[in-house]
């Protein structure tokens, strides 16, 4: 069910990633200020945007779960957050590499953009122990959805707060006044953003497909393992 169209999506993602990388290294001009190091932004910023949007999407799926009680929405919410946390790791690492090259430090604690993203990332890192501390699946899904909604609402608020902060060092990709990205850079950036978004969607679908197959395998096992008339023994113990 989840795997429908996954092959086409995977091909589209590979093509989009290859095209966007070609644009980054062969089409986009060098930044006058930062030079070659600015190429990291075509990876770092789309990853950050996708991760943050993914967290919010996880919250939206959680709302659908709480409204409908359909546990498939909980699965979507869980996988969205899971994938965004992985993307978040990539954001932190690529950002640190850029910071080292540009600022001479791997991390700067008085920079709101960095610290706020770290806070969001750590907040979602607590999602796993929070979720798995609850054994009852129904309660687990419900509580996890409440967490996902609350944290998902925090993400845009956090983003707005950072934009309002008077940061002196972290560059702004989309300037609100003069000096935004020139056309070729913006085109490349949008291509990278589209490719990264496609990658996120593909990986979410892949993870959901794997989880669905695993769940169906367990159901099959239970069906085969069911006590037959005249006998009630299990053929194998449940593996937890």
């Amino acid at each position: 069910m989840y795997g429908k169209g996954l092959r086409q999506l995977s091909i589209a993602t590979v093509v989009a990633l290859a095209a966007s990388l070609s644009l980054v290294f062969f089409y986009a001009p060098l930044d006058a200020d930062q030079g070659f190091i600015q190429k990291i932004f075509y990876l770092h910023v789309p990853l950050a945007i996708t991760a943050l949007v993914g967290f919010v999407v996880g919250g939206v799926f959680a709302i659908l779960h709480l409204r409908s009680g359909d546990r498939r929405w909980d699965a979507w919410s869980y996988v969205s957050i899971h994938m965004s946390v992985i993307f978040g790791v990539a954001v932190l690492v690529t950002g640190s590499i850029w910071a080292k090259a540009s600022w001479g430090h791997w991390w700067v604690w008085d920079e709101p953009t960095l610290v706020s993203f770290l806070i969001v990332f750590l907040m979602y890192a607590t999602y796993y122990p929070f979720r798995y501390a609850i054994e009852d699946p129904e309660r687990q899904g419900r509580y996890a959805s409440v967490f996902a909604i609350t944290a998902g609402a925090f993400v845009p608020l956090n983003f707005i707060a950072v934009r309002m902060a008077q940061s002196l060092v972290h560059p702004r990709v989309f300037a609100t006044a003069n000096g935004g990205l020139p056309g070729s850079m913006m085109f490349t950036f949008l291509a990278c953003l589209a490719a990264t978004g496609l990658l996120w969607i593909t990986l979410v679908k892949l993870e959901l497909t794997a989880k669905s197959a695993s769940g169906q395998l367990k159901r099959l096992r239970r069906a085969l393992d069911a006590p037959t008339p005249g006998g009630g023994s299990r053929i194998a113990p449940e593996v937890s």
Partner: protein
Amino acid sequence: MVALLAGAPALPLDEAGKYVAGAYVVFLVLLVVYVAIMAAKLQRMERDLRDLAGFAENRANGETAAPGRGSEGQSISVSSGPSESRGGGR
């Protein structure tokens, strides 16, 4: 694409080059590790499915230890990874 490549600026692989390469390699490594984990999960599921199919065939052929009972000797070990036991919504 050819025109794009013809007009492309030369890559100045100076000091910045190693940082840019590092960032893209980190991304690639993360992606490869994730795909490898998914491949391992898929292999495990395939193995479990094969075991289940074998057991179902045996049962259909009446090769179970006793009628109406599961065979004590036959054990299906459907391994469930941490993600499954943790739920994930199903």
